[in-house]
């Protein structure tokens, strides 16, 4: 009998290829298991998109009212990378059965989170750079990193791999944003008074964010603190 290259319809018409590669490729041992189904992941990605889009917009609003030139220029890049993150989440939505028009439809997890975003965007005048940056770089972006990493750990590693890929890239950049923002804040807050303003602003926003349940609205509100 000649070696079969292609399987036929009967049990004796199998090919002779080994079921596993002769090249000793390590087997993928990950199991098909994840905390979020398609609908849940789609909802979370919508929440992520909402957060990124609003964060980008508020930083855009702030640039003109921040007097420190290096902060203005530094935020320029953070804005772009935040927009790219929002865009990636938007592109993922149609892949999660949200329809083709879902690309730009982020949504808040709940009204309390939408209110939190408005509180975050609240500081306006040029003397409030510390409050603007503390809200983002001490509270909100670290929270997003935590939730994105949680999603990467808990979601189905194979089925939801495209979301994981997106999040990996975003988290890498977010860590850089936090390092930059916190260094700027460390330098700006050179007196006890300024350091106290930074702490107060961060504490107030953490409390509000915690009460809202965070970006996905699912954070355990019994937690004593975020991050």
């Amino acid at each position, binding site marked *: 009998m000649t070696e079969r290259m292609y399987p036929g319809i009967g049990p004796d018409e199998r090919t002779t290829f080994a079921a596993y590669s002769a090249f000793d490729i390590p087997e993928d041992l990950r199991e098909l298991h994840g905390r979020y189904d398609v609908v849940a992941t789609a909802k979370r990605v919508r929440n992520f998109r909402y957060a990124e889009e609003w964060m980008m917009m508020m930083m*855009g609003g702030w640039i003109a009212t921040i007097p420190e030139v290096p902060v*203005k220029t530094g935020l320029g890049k953070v804005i772009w990378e935040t927009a790219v993150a929002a865009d990636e989440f938007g592109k993922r939505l149609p892949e999660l059965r949200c329809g083709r028009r879902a690309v730009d439809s982020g949504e808040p997890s709940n009204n309390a989170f939408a209110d939190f975003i408005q509180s975050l965007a609240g500081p306006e005048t*040029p003397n409030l750079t510390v409050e603007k940056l503390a809200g983002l770089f001490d509270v909100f972006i670290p929270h997003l990193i935590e939730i994105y990493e949680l999603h990467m750990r808990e979601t189905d590693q194979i089925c939801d791999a495209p979301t994981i890929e997106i999040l990996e890239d975003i988290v890498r950049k977010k860590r850089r944003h936090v390092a930059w923002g916190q260094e700027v804040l460390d330098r700006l807050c050179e007196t006890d008074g300024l350091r106290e303003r930074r702490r107060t602003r961060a504490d107030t926003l953490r409390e509000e964010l915690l009460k809202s349940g965070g970006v996905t609205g699912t954070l355990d509100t019994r937690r004593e603190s975020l991050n």
Partner: protein
Amino acid sequence: MKRFIEHEELARDSRFIRGNNAQATVLASLPDDVDAVVKAIDPMAQLIEEGVRGTAAEPLFEAYGPAFIITVLNEPLDPEAPAAGIRLLFRMHGIFVGELQALEGAARSLWDFPDAPWEFKMNMARQCWDEGRHVQIFEKLLIHLGGEVGMFPENTFLFECACSDDPAMRVAGVNRGLEGLACDVFRDMIRYAQKTGDTVMEQAVDYVLADEITHVRFGSEWVKEFTKDNPDYLERTQNFRREVDKQFNFGGARSDRPDSAIQIAIEDRLEAGFDMDEINEISSLSSAGPKKETLRQAAAILKELHDARKSNQNKEVTQ
């Protein structure tokens, strides 16, 4: 945070000094008449002097009087010309603050127009990064040439003119008016750098020019998109852009005349989505302003008036 801010609200650190935007408005409306130019500029002498006091522009005011605002702006940059170094720094500082205002204009578009299409926001976000880099680049070039931030007053009329509350007019003003002006100025700066053999400046400005063409293209495309199926809206938007371009001609400093300080960068503008009719229109807007000879004669009279005032002041002091 409120939507839309005034140019007076642009935040600056303690190095900056704010100039008076009235000068730019007067320059934009100068007629081709020596007496009229003198009558328009001379009454502003005190205002101009106050604006430059304590800055690197003070010696220019001392030398030329209020005419320095037309002399400095309207003469082409020439490395061999008197005061070439300080005039180069004056222009470089002007570009630096222009980039700062372009960054602020693009960034405000993200906040001011929350319902704009997502692709528009992506373009504006990209522009924020680019303009942020441009601010860094021109700050470094300023230092490379021996200058520093805040050495001249900052005029915020670019933001004032270009930042409309209407999205189509905003992109027409910022992306086509302001960024189009940047294309003209940067092409001129590249020529200057080639003339002086400054390869650092030549390469950096060439990269920036490439970005600016992209930003003008954003503007060209979004004006079309925002005004599609609405010819009346398009016409109002184009009128707004014409007004902005008229302001940005600086009384003829930017024109297609062979001896103009800043030539219109026709090839770059075509690549960015301007058509020849629009480019010709910018040329004709500038030709409506004073001719070079008119400005030179007016500058000479203004200098005489300035010298006479100084002489009288000196006499009063000695008496």
